[in-house]
């Protein structure tokens, strides 16, 4: 008997969160952010990976929240956690020493190498939009085993040929600066967008179209991307979320639709 699939729209937060949760199969330790990643890690713990250890940049390791966290420093993440570390220990020992397998990141812009802009739209001197800046992303990118980016848009503005500013660089850019400075992490391995799943199989390579969401074509995805993006040989349609995954997201994880939109 096959598992019933949901017909929720591919651009919906339910769809994106379910796709993001599946990236955590077999991963041990995840650096979770706020927003969609909060939903993804919670869903993964209830489905594909009950043992995944949640680490937050606020210093929390092994969180077992009794409710939905509103932010990475929410008290609900602290109560019942395995440990709360100082920030020098969290960033220095846990992250920089290489204990994190997957980091979830958001961005305003992602380029073909998986470098991220979270700082400025427009000129740095007089930006059109002042974005939140680096936060911990500039540390997660080089030091996590790999990074998964969830984007809420798929258009040439969010996936441009060139970033307005590079906040968190791909290993490709580190390599360009100095081959000896290439960090231990893979950088961005996966970008989940409302249209597709893009993957970057080689640490020093480019993103390619790996999965296309139901109802869309490879050409739709290429047309919405700001550079001539290659297509993976084994490109396929993205698996839809199951009815059960959508039910968990709506009825158990985010009942107030804090992050589901």
């Amino acid at each position, binding site marked *: 008997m096959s598992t019933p699939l949901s017909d929720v729209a591919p651009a919906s937060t339910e769809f994106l969160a379910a796709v993001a949760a599946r990236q955590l199969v077999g991963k041990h330790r995840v650096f979770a952010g706020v927003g969609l990643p909060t939903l993804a890690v919670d869903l993964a713990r209830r489905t594909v990976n009950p043992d995944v250890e949640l680490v937050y940049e606020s*210093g929390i390791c092994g969180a077992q929240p009794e409710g939905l966290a509103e932010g990475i420093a929410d008290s609900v993440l602290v109560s019942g956690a395995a440990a709360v570390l100082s920030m*020098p220990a969290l960033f220095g020992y846990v992250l920089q020493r290489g204990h994190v397998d997957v980091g979830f990141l958001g961005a305003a812009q992602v380029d073909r190498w998986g*470098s991220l802009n979270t700082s400025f739209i427009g000129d*740095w001197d007089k930006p059109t939009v002042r974005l*939140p800046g680096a936060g911990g992303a*500039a540390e997660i990118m*080089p030091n996590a085993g790999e990074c998964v980016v969830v984007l809420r848009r798929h258009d040439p503005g969010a996936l441009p040929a060139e970033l307005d500013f590079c906040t968190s660089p791909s290993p490709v*850019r580190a390599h360009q600066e100095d081959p*000896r400075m*290439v960090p231990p992490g893979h950088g961005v391995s996966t970008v989940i967008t409302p249209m597709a799943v893009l993957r970057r199989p080689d640490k020093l390579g480019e993103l390619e179209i790996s999965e296309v969401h139901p109802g869309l074509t490879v050409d739709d995805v290429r047309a919405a991307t700001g550079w001539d993006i290659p297509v993976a040989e084994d490109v396929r349609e993205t698996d839809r979320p199951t009815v059960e995954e959508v039910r968990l997201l709506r009825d158990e994880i985010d009942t107030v639709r804090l992050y589901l939109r």
Partner: protein
Amino acid sequence: MATPDKVTDLTSAVAAHVRDGMTVALEGFGHLIPFAAGHEIIRQGRRDLTFCRMTPDLLADQMIAAGCVSKLVASFFASGSAGSLHEVRRRVENADPKPLEVEEYSHYGMVCRYQAGASGLPFFPLRSYAGSDLPKLNPLIRKVADPYGGPDIYVVPPLRPDVTILHAQRADRSGNVQMWGIVGAQQEAAYAAETVIVTVEEIVEEDVVRSDPNRTVLPSHAVTAVVECPGGAHPSYTQGHYDRDNAFYREWTPISRDREAVLGWLEEWVHGVPDREAYLDKLGAERWAGLGVAPRPSQPVDFGRRRVAAQEAS
């Protein structure tokens, strides 16, 4: 020799230690944000401060709008889950009503700056920034050769605030400060500073502190002044005391969009009240009760003691 009593009130502590033009750090990573102290700085009309905070939070929006701050040293420029800090954005995007100087790092960059300051080191290395535009934006992020033959590495300079201000659960009168939950980079930010002011939910007997010395984040030698200030972190939270006022954070976003509304809010909620007690009264018992938390106490640990000393004590 008796240990000096460092307990004072917030008005006196700010008046004595925070002066125009100083570099001031108000730390607390989403937790224990010293809002009451920030509001007292606004009330006393301090100007030209270099304001250091990893995550400026809406406290920065308030202090900048109030005209206290000429420079912001930080690593994240949004308000957690609740969106943009519009006062910061108006300054940076449109110099409205005037420009704001910004010195920008990543989170670990700021942590390393505090560590260098706290340890008396000339700089601190970290494995971030290779390939990033951040060193071009901020020339204080520099690259050095590894004297042991490894690859070049980026370093950040020490951050040495004139004053660091923190909030915590409790302290004794001599200034031994205990906190739990998210402790962020508070210890580093305090040891990096010349002067340290700590507001606490409660002043406790020395015996309480000494029953659990591992919980002490700052020994009294690192603390200049202690202020009893219940509710001093609202609208952020104090673990085990009261939760974050998430509704307030959401309400701030529309206020923040309109500079006149921000100034009106400051007039009513900062200048319009003499102290935190009055602020909490104004907030109302019902809203405060809504932020209450259910107990989840830790299991006590046993530090043990010498048998002879135990016999003498009994």
